[in-house]
């Protein structure tokens, strides 16, 4: 019941009535206020923030009881209104009730009559308010449940994996939007529908049925191809708390991209195996010739065979080492130690290391560095840069016939420091130039047949340059030589200072 005393407003133009009612009600512990007409009552009602009960006479100046009833109802639909009047008729009673009055007390009335009406009214009001509160709470709960259910449904339909649920009899009872996308023909069938009817993939159907019908709990996993895509399908039983099988749920995940990666990897492995097998077979044959004597014995020729075998073995070792580096880069295990580096110094080192080789072929190997202080420092891994330059100079020497020229130059423009390797060797066709950075690609012609190489050198060069956010450009024409330019960002450009 109410913690605070109920508040009652008595509205009557007769002062005697007002005081009389006040005394009666106050003695019961109610809080009472009075007003002499409708308008005053409205003001009092608003000012007090409402009353639990309003007892009102009908005939009053300014605003009468009937109008007051209506006005109060508008303000507070829970307001309890009791009408008291000397002019009691059935019609007025009905009218007052229609307008929202709760009760009707004809004057004169005894104090007990008044109190009874008030007490009943208050009880009713309390019940009504409680019922209202309960109703509101139930609505809120229902809303929450609906929201939860709709939340789950929304989540289900936003999933990228397809979800399919069948019941014990193998009928589809739930599928999400993703599944309808994966199996468009399935969504044509309204649910529930036997899975064999709606799904045109015997593998998926048998998987799901296997799980549903299994005696013990079975979880099935399979890769299934659907059109051009591959899906990993996982099916599990849907269980009741008692452990009984209610049905099965299958989740379809698109692994097409993963599959492509797998295929690409195994192709690469295949390529590598092939690239390793041939040279090894040749080395073996060369050694066999010398050891078995099947080609007779010719010391000079035999010596040549052995030297060739050795060179081939050395190239193979470089191949393996290059492959390891490439794999390290690809898997992200290759760590660069970036520091301030002097491109001129690095290039000089690399060029000096090749000077003997160039001399053997009577190739003129020149380096033009200009003023070292004019070349800005680069932010780079010194070993990586040296590797890049060595590779380019090595290639230039390899693909330039005897008596040719290889010129190396270093310059910078503030943003990039650049090394340019120019040779007047055999050059390349546009088709060859497009492929030189591909793994294992080597230009094949009568000249290059005698040039050892792995086909991975430039692949590595390109990767290393990319890792430094650098650039590599190639200019070449058959018979006219080649120009390779590699640019590395300077420290100021790289750090944005």
């Amino acid at each position, binding site marked *: 019941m109410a913690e605070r005393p109920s508040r009652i407003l008595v509205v009557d133009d007769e002062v005697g009535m007002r005081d009389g009612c006040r005394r009666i009600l106050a003695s019961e512990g109610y809080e009472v206020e009075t007003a002499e007409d409708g308008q005053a009552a409205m003001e009092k009602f608003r000012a007090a923030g409402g009353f639990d009960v309003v007892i009102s006479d009908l005939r009053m100046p300014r605003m009468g009881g009937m109008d007051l009833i209506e006005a109060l109802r508008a303000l507070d639909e829970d307001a309890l209104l009791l009408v008291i009047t000397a002019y009691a008729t059935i019609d007025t009673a009905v009218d007052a009730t229609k307008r929202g009055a709760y009760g009707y007390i004809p004057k004169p009335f005894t104090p007990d009559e008044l109190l009874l009406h008030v007490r009943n009214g208050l009880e009713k009001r309390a019940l009504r308010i409680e019922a209202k509160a309960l109703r509101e709470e139930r609505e809120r709960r229902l809303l929450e449940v609906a929201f939860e259910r709709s939340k789950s449904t929304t989540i289900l339909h936003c999933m990228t994996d397809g979800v399919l649920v069948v019941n014990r009899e193998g009928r589809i009872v739930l599928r999400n939007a993703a599944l309808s996308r994966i199996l468009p023909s399935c969504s044509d069938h309204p649910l529930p529908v036997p899975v064999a009817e709606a799904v045109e993939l015997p593998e998926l159907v048998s998987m799901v049925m296997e799980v549903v019908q299994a005696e013990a709990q079975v979880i099935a996993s399979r890769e299934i191809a659907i059109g051009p895509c591959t899906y990993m399908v996982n099916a599990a039983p849907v269980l009741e708390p008692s452990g009984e099988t209610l049905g099965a749920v299958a989740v379809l995940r698109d692994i097409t991209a993963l599959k492509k990666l797998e295929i690409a990897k195994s192709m690469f492995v295949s390529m590598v195996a092939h690239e390793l097998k041939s040279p090894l*077979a*040749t080395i073996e*044959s060369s050694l066999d*010739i010398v050891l078995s004597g*099947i*080609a007779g014995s010719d010391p000079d020729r035999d010596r040549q065979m052995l030297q060739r075998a050795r060179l081939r073995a050395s190239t193979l070792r470089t191949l393996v080492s290059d492959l390891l580096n490439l794999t390290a880069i690809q898997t992200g295990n290759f760590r660069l130690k970036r520091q301030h580096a002097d491109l001129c110094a690095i290039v000089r080192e690399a060029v000096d290391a090749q000077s003997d080789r160039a001399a053997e072929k009577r190739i003129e190997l020149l380096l033009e560095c200009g003023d070292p202080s004019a070349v800005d420092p680069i932010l780079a891994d010194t070993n990586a840069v040296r590797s890049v330059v060595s590779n380019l100079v090595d290639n230039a020497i390899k693909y330039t016939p005897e008596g040719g020229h290889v010129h190396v130059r270093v310059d910078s423009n503030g943003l990039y420091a650049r090394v340019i390797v120019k040779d007047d060797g055999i050059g390349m066709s546009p088709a060859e130039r497009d492929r030189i950075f591909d793994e294992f690609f080597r230009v094949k*012609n009568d000249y290059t047949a005698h040039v050892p190489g792995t086909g991975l050198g430039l692949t590595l060069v390109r990767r290393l340059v990319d890792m430094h956010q650098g650039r590599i450009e190639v200019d070449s024409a058959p018979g006219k030589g080649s120009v390779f330019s590699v640019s590395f960002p300077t420290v100021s450009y790289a750090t944005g200072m």
Partner: protein
Amino acid sequence: MSEGRKVLLVDDDVDLVAVNRAVLESHGYTVCVAHSGPAGLQKAKAERPDLVVLDVMMGTNSEGFDLARALRADEATRGIPLIMVTSVHTTVPFRFEPDPQFLPVDRFVEKPLPPESLLKEVERLLA
């Protein structure tokens, strides 16, 4: 008998060619070599060998097949027996047996081919 018999070896692997050449020459054959398809065709027309041994894959995947077809297409070289050396990774189109239409060779052998085996194959075809 190998007297006066000329064999043309076509393979981009110079060391392998050198090995095979050594074996054949030491058994009395005359050997000429080429390291690419186009060079092989030229040599075949110029030297008119009694047999050609060609590697299936040189610069490109089809270089060996292209050479075989070119040799068959040309009157001068049509009649020369061909031995084609393949590797396990070669995808042989459609057939495994020599086929006049697609694979105009007389014999397939697989890499790596021990020099003695090459010798035997050559002797057999030229017998």
